[in-house]
């Protein structure tokens, strides 16, 4: 029958591998949840800001000479949607950045839980609003751009465009949304389970 002190003796006898010459490379891409999330959000926001700038530059200096104001309006709308989405990503980035890895485990876990609760709320409206608004703007833009095309081409184009949008929103989008919701729920359950262990 082993007593706990003997287990302690076994533990303390175990010699860990030498670490002196194996410093972690702090510059390597981290697989840490926090750093990874921050990088994804920051890069996503930068890409969207850049896209908005490029579209705005095209609208101003592109010499498209569109006849109708609403075509430029559509370009402005696309810019605004990109800017709004980028700002939301930047805001989410800040929320992740504020999670304190040096806080007590219980506080740290509840900070993550708060983040995932925020993400769950965001998931409900952000994706659908972004999708509908962007496609509305693209639809308006195509009215003038496609004006000179043959009737046959227009029928094919709008059929493919509409079919793709319906597929992307109702089939692909909903499936992704469902999966993401399930993932967030599972993470939140695990976080609550861990938090509970500290309370017991």
């Amino acid at each position: 029958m082993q007593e706990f002190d003997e287990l302690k003796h076994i533990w303390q006898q175990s010699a860990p591998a030498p670490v002196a010459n194996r410093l972690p490379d702090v510059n390597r891409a981290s697989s840490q949840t926090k750093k990874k999330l921050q990088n994804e959000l920051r890069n996503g926001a930068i890409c969207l800001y850049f896209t908005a700038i490029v579209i705005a530059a095209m609208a101003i200096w592109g010499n498209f000479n569109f006849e109708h104001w609403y075509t430029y309006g559509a370009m402005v709308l696309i810019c605004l949607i990109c800017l709004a989405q980028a700002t939301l990503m930047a805001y989410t980035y800040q929320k992740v950045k504020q999670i304190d890895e040096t806080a007590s485990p219980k506080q740290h876990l509840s900070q993550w839980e708060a983040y995932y609760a925020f993400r769950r709320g965001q998931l409900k409206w952000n994706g659908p609003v972004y999708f509908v608004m962007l496609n509305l703007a693209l639809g308006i833009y195509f009215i003038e751009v496609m004006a000179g095309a043959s009737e046959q081409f227009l029928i094919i184009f709008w059929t493919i465009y509409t079919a793709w949008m319906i597929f992307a929103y109702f089939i692909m989008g909903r499936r992704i949304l469902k999966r993401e919701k399930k993932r967030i729920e599972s993470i939140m359950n695990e976080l609550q389970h861990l938090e509970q262990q500290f309370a017991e």
Partner: protein
Amino acid sequence: MRQQETFTQLYRQYAPGIRKLCLGYTGSAAQAEDLLQEAFMAVWNNMHKYRGDASWGTWIYRIAVNTCLLYLRKEKSKPQKVDTDLLQNMADEENNQESEVQHLYKCISRLPETERLIISMVLEDLPYEDIASIAGISENNLRVKIHRIKKQLTEMFNSYARV
């Protein structure tokens, strides 16, 4: 002292203990190595936040505990019931002192998540006051937990010894 020098010194001083903590938590040397790297990357990224309220050791252990708890979420490793068949196989495979160490790690990795971390720190002989500060719980609550975990771990280890 430059950040790099302080970091190197802290790594050399605390990495062996943190590695054991991670090993007790995951029960796998490869995962423990991965966790050790992640924990020290978090230490590097947060060094500017250190105010000296607690010792470097307490501060680093706390970051390591937080890293471990989140890592588990990714790895989906759950505490498992001790399987006597599995322990029998393990006993057949290894019969030296090192095997006792390995079995101790395996037994620890079968405890609930927070208990693995607490008992690893107890085995490492960290003062109860420090462990309570790292875990963010009261010392009284910690003592109750430790008493329960010690009993559970000893029973688990002895059940291996019997097979």
